């Protein structure tokens, strides 16, 4: 227990209940706190109406909740809507203006980290770093599968980190890049939608063996013409497995972790993502930030089961507590 990895919950995890108005923002914060997590992550545009506008009354209420539930704002997830205007792709100046709104928003609500969506270019990052430094907010490009931390796109972001030498720009690896076994909940839903069970099993076996996605897709394309079967094969492309040791060489650049998960089992393991292997690497690298639970299985089971995000997050947090 000689390390400083901390636990957070992204309120994204409770989106099913939030969408259906079974839980409001305070309920989500309370549920996160109840798991023992000490940090809160949000998608501003999900949790707070009128984004990026904030009223003083809301800010008071927000910090009131943080005190009441004894939690800390950790990360705000930003988006870059380059195509917000119909028929017009934002210029760099427009993108920078949008980014600054997120930085001001995060700063006012006490978030020290912004999750930068993966479509933001390295050029934009370089233009906003000083603004982020001035607002004491660290920017982390999300390393979300099918990207991994050494992908060409991330390499270009890394060059900006290195060249500027800033402490306010780093990586936020998403655990989805360590999908050793494809999410059962996702595959099962596609079978319910008409995918062939035998082909799905084949895809899962091949992926688990580490066979390259393009090979799996090519093989399935020879078995069937059904679009949904090809889509199952394509899961292997979108949900990659890379050696977690790749995080080690970037240890000093990792500012936050997205603890993506699809299905927590009763024995406190994730069905397809080897959390222990990854957390061991993070410990070795001296990671001192937060791992934030990010439940994403909801959308794959909502057609036949009642989603219980609260229980899934509870199990995930208990797993993290044991592994950290």
């Amino acid at each position, binding site marked *: 227990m000689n390390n400083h990895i901390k636990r957070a919950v992204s309120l994204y995890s409770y989106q099913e209940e939030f969408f259906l108005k079974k839980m409001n923002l305070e309920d989500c914060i309370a549920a996160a706190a109840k798991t023992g997590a000490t940090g809160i992550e949000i998608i501003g*545009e999900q*949790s707070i109406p009128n984004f990026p506008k904030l009223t003083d009354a809301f800010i008071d209420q927000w910090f009131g909740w943080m005190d009441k539930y004894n939690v800390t704002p950790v990360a705000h997830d930003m988006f870059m*809507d380059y195509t*917000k205007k119909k028929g017009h792709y934002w210029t760099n100046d427009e993108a920078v203006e949008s980014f600054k709104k997120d930085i001001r928003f995060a700063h006012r609500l006490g978030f020290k980290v912004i999750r930068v969506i993966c*479509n933001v270019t390295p050029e934009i990052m370089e233009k906003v770093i000083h603004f982020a430094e001035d607002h004491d907010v660290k920017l982390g490009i999300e390393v979300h599968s099918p990207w991994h931390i050494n992908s060409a796109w991330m390499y270009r972001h890394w060059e900006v980190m290195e060249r500027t030498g800033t402490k306010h720009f780093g990586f936020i690896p998403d655990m989805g890049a360590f999908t050793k076994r494809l999410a059962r909940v996702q595959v099962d839903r596609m079978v319910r939608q008409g995918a062939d069970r035998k082909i799905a099993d084949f895809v899962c076996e091949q992926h688990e063996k580490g066979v390259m996605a393009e090979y799996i897709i090519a093989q399935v394309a020879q078995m069937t013409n059904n679009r949904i079967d090809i889509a199952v094969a394509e899961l292997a492309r979108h949900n990659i497995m890379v050696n977690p040791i790749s995080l080690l060489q970037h240890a000093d650049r990792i500012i936050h972790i997205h603890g993506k998960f699809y299905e927590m089992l009763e024995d406190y393991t994730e069905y397809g993502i080897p959390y222990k292997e990854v957390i061991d690497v993070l410990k070795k690298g001296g990671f001192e930030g937060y791992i934030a639970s990010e439940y994403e299985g909801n959308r794959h089971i909502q057609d036949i089961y009642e989603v219980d995000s609260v229980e899934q997050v509870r199990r995930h947090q208990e797993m993290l507590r044991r592994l950290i």
Partner: protein
Amino acid sequence: MIVPEKAKKTENGFQFGARLPYYRGISLSMVEEIEVTLDGETLPQSAVNITVHGNTYDLVQREKETDDRWEMGEEAILSVKKEDGLSVGEHKLGLKINLRIGYMPFPSIRVAEKKIII
């Protein structure tokens, strides 16, 4: 995505409730298409107005609206003009919503179908 309980006849057509099929709120300008089908007939997109938290937009206004937002989980009202009206009773309602999401390399399209009772 369709909220059938909010369906009712209006002076020049009908309306129903709809929730944005996405995990965050977005500006109305990013809603690329709202396509309504009634009993198999596809209605023109220009016949559909959207009302979010009391503000109503027609197609042209919606496409230009980069500030006002359709929030996560918010029940918007979609009002559809239909010259010949519609009969009392059960109808099959289809809805396709296409969103322009900057980080997605393809359009984000969701479809739904529900029975409504007028």
